[in-house]
């Protein structure tokens, strides 16, 4: 029975995919899966502090338990005062405890300062400059074109070359956001009117996940992004490709973009669509996800997002396209060709 | 022992006065507490002004002349001078001198009215709207904060003055007059730093 065999295969495929996604994705945004020098340094610091704090906690609990369960009890005067050898030891203990706590704090503060120094010292070849601007609720990403040196834009997916320091300049076009890729570094706020710089040196190939970490309004929960760390050669190829204008053949979809509302907010380089309010779509189909990882970049995702963005991400700036299904299909066909 | 103990007298406080002047009195401490609160507010507002001034490329920003110095100087001179009758009033009140207290309250009331008039001219000649930029907002913030204190003390003084002319005060009420004078000293002392921030900083930076 072919049908049911297909179904079984299909279900197995889904399960494999799910399991892969689960194990794969679960670590992609974890502080404990460092993929860069900086994240590795921070996870060592976290481990050191965590272990020391755990030991201190156990010590306190043990002392508390002993205090409650001791058999021998001292004599207490009618006014509630206590003297004697035990009291004397408790007094000495106070000094010992104060010194111990102070010493631990000095060690931890010292470890923190050393970490700060390590994080501040750049190592490696000349850094790659990237600019990321937070918007409600997506990420505007800009690189220098390797050909012209001009800043070219993409959105919601960050690519970085392995082993080369990246200097990520962060700001915001509206409210305060926070750029956080736990696998690469701690978070840093994106503040309108300020430029913050995050220095990361990726050391592992593959995909990482980042998410906005400062409450930025209604759809703060749906503002995430992909990071891909690739070999320098792959990265150069990707960057050159991103810097080139749109590769798709003109068709009815492009006409809809240029003549309709889309071009007012979106840019497709090489066409007449030059809007800057929304994400750059020149190489939309080269990305994995849509609307800051609200959806995956599939045919269904694109259809749904263009037709009903407010149902998928209420409050997003993107209005419904108002196009009939035929035109929507043509538009999506064009977008899928924007590789 | 879970019963109420008996009570035995070991001292008597009936001969104590029913009020004390200055920090020995209870109410003085309430007034002092509110001075701390408002002082903290002033310090933070002034700190905010200095924080934004330190970041500004120009202070005041391009196109805004500093506040007109004349009215600010006049206000400053008058409020500092008002400290003299104020201290005299406080001393006379602590001595429970009713005629002197009444006179002092009237004088301080008139001075308060004159100062509010001068303050009105100051506010009309700050040469910036609060809605123009952050500099304008902060100048107005400092001025409104101080003005609200001048106004509050003026209303207090007028009410106490009316009361003192129509009633027979006891020691607690003389202590109140003294505390009110103390509050005016606070209003006087908080002015010079604000004057420097509002009138001086735009001219020196």
């Amino acid at each position, binding site marked *: 029975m072919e049908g049911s065999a297909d179904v079984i295969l299909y279900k197995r495929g889904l399960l494999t995919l799910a399991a892969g996604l689960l194990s794969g994705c679960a670590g992609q945004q*974890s502080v404990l899966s460092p993929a860069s020098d900086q994240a590795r340094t921070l996870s060592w610091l976290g481990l050191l502090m965590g272990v020391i*704090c755990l030991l201190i906690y156990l010590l306190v609990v043990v002392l508390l338990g002993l205090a409650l369960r001791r058999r021998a009890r001292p004599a207490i005067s009618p006014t509630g005062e*206590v003297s004697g050898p035990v009291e004397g030891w408790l007094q000495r203990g106070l000094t010992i405890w104060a010194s111990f706590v102070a010493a631990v704090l000095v060690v931890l503060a010292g470890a923190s300062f050393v970490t700060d120094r390590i994080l501040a010292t750049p190592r490696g070849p000349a850094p790659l400059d990237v600019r990321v601007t937070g918007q409600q609720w997506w990420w505007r990403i800009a690189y220098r074109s390797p050909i012209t040196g001009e800043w070219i834009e993409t959105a919601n997916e960050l690519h970085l070359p392995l082993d080369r320091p990246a200097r990520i300049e962060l700001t915001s076009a509206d409210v305060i956001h926070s750029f956080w890729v736990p696998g690469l570094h701690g978070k840093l*706020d994106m503040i309108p009117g300020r430029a913050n710089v995050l220095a990361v040196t990726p050391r592992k190939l593959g995909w990482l996940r980042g998410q906005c970490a400062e409450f930025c309004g209604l759809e703060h929960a749906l503002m995430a992004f992909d990071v891909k760390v690739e070999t320098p050669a792959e990265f150069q190829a990707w960057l050159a490709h991103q810097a080139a204008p749109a590769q798709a053949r003109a068709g009815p979809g492009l006409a809809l973009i240029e003549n309709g509302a889309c071009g007012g907010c979106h840019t497709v380089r090489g066409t007449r669509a030059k809007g800057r309010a929304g994400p750059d779509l020149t190489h939309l189909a080269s990305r994995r996800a849509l609307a800051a990882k609200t959806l995956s970049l599939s045919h269904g995702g694109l259809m749904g997002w263009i037709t009903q963005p407010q149902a998928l991400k209420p409050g997003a700036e993107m209005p419904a396209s108002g196009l009939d299904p035929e035109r929507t299909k043509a538009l999506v066909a064009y977008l899928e060709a924007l590789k | 022992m879970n019963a109420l*103990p008996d*009570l035995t007298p070991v*001292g008597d406080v009936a001969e104590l006065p029913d009020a004390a002047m200055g920090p020995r009195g209870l109410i003085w401490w309430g007034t002092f507490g509110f001075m701390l609160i*408002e002082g903290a507010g002033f310090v933070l507002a002034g700190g905010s002004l200095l924080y934004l001034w330190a970041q500004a490329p120009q202070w005041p920003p391009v196109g805004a002349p500093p506040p007109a110095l004349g009215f600010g100087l006049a206000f400053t001179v008058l409020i500092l001078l008002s400290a003299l009758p104020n201290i005299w009033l406080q001393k006379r009140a602590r001595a429970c001198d009713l005629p002197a207290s009444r006179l002092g309250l009237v004088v301080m009331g008139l001075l308060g009215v004159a100062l509010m008039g001068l303050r009105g001219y100051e506010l009309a000649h700050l040469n910036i709207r609060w809605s123009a930029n952050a500099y304008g907002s902060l100048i107005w913030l400092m001025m409104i904060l101080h003005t609200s204190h001048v106004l509050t003390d003026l209303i207090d003084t007028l009410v106490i003055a009316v009361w003192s002319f129509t009633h027979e005060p006891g020691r607690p009420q003389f202590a109140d007059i003294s505390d009110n004078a103390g509050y005016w000293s606070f209003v006087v002392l908080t002015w010079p730093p604000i004057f420097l921030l509002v009138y001086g900083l735009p001219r020196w930076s």
Partner: protein
Amino acid sequence: MSAVPILDRAEAEARCLAAWRDAPGLWGFLTTVDHKRIAGRYVCTTMALLFMAGVLALDMRLQLAFPGMHRMGAQGYNEAFTLHGSTMLFLVSVPVMEAMAMWLVPLMLGQRNMAFPRLNAFSYWTYLGGVLMLWVPHALNVTPDLGWFQYPPLSGPGYAPGHRTDVWAQMITFTEVAALSVSVNTAVTILRMRPLGMTLAKMPLFLWAMLVASVMTILALPAVMLVTSMLIADRLVATHFFDPVAGGDVVLFQHLFWFFGHPEVYIIFVPALGFVAQIVETFSRRRVFGYIPVVLSLLTIAVLAFGLWVHHMFAVGLPKLGASFYTAASMAIALPTGLQIYCWIATLWGGRPRLTTPLLWVIGFIATFVIGGLSGVMTASAPLDLQLTDTYFIVAHLHYVLIGGALFPLFGAFCYWFPKATGRLLSERWGKVSFWLVFGGFNLGFFPMHFLGLMGMPRRIYTYGHEMGWQPLNVVALAGSVIAVGGGLIFVANACFSFKRGAPSGPNPWEASTLEWACASPPPPYNFTHSPVVDSLTPLWPPPQVLPVVTGLSLDEREVLVTSVVDAQPVHRQASAKPSIWPLVSALAVSATFVGSIFTPWALVWGTLPVAAALTAWFWPHRRLTPGARRLLGKAT
């Protein structure tokens, strides 16, 4: 038997009652200045709000137990965490601690009332205005929705149209006026109304804690009043404090807010340390170990707390050198805190502990708060904090220190002083059951959140994808929260049943040492007919047959004794304010002004008139008119 003169208690009680009793019924309710009644109102209101905030919390836990849930949309969830946080921090935690002080401070001082009785009444009505300021708009669907600290530009005129943020900002104004009023009252009472002989060196640790917390409140709360007023001004009258385009700075908001916000958490925590001190002393049956180190720790915490606020801003991108200073200071505050923990354990070690319910709550406090303190040491490290802040790690940390560090001692304090307040004993058995459920449920619910943060789960998200792998721990968090709330309900049920049917307690069921246990349970309106004289830190140890007191304060007029700051020498008698409607009227005038100023700045101008009138009536001394005034008013001379 020595012939010590004994005062006629019955006669004194009758005369005091006549002078100090409230009018019956509604009028008495509206005009009372009895600190115990007002404190009782505060406690009931805060506990009702605690329950409501808890329901919001369960709602959020349920929402997050299933990835991709759309039961609560983004708007609903954002409103929930805003209401939850704002209610807990502004309407529950600080007010309930102040209420406990309001109730207990005069009793522990052997005094009949606080320094400014009507100010207490005013503070409650103003606080109630703050409660309504937040919850009535919620009922009308104008709920604030940007969190319990609403950073501009998100909360500014450009991105938060409508009145939700104005509601939040003005609610804060109400509650801060109320809190400042109580704090001034508490501080002045502790400094100037101690009984003869209670020098600062013989003052119970709870009073030290409340003195410290009150002074901290006085110095910290103006910051939040200022910053929320500046935000309202930006929104309402087009000022530009936080507008970067016009020379303002959004980070200024954060500095001012956290200058308040960090001391605020210690303002909540320090009174809890006071509860712990008294409970540990009574149930170890000995004086607290290390009185002087504990007092010095309280003072050190108070000072240091004002120098830490930037640790809430490590991710803002401020200069690294500054961040290092705040790391060092934030770690340093662990030292005085750790010293206090040692002293409590040492008291138990060198004493004869009795495992009653209040002591269980203190043990729960130590076992729980220390986790929060240690996670705080981790987040004190500026670089590590960049991974931890704004994630569920911080959510875990803040709940461990607030619930473990403040609510557990508070519940212990409720159990400890319940017999004094009501004259009845709580059920020990149900008290212990509720403790274990709350303690176990809380730890089950919140410990996993440390790991969720490390797994990358940010704060304030209404949903997440299944692929993130966050669901299992979120389900555990839900289970723990449900258990804890169940324990809380049993706690309340115990209180309600015991209030009606508990065994009578007598004045000193715990054989405690401080003065509040020397008056009846519940205390009469005047607390003590005569002010006791003390000569030790533990005046009721050993339990006196005869309590030394002073005479001379009127039994027929409301009078209290004012003593000197350090040595508690007698200075003067003070007429104590009688019941009055003016605190309520003033609070109504103030409330109308605050509510109106959300809509128009002119409300501040017009509101001055009724406020001034009400305050004038409040403070108007009632003494003989002069002959001239009598003639003017047509009265007989």
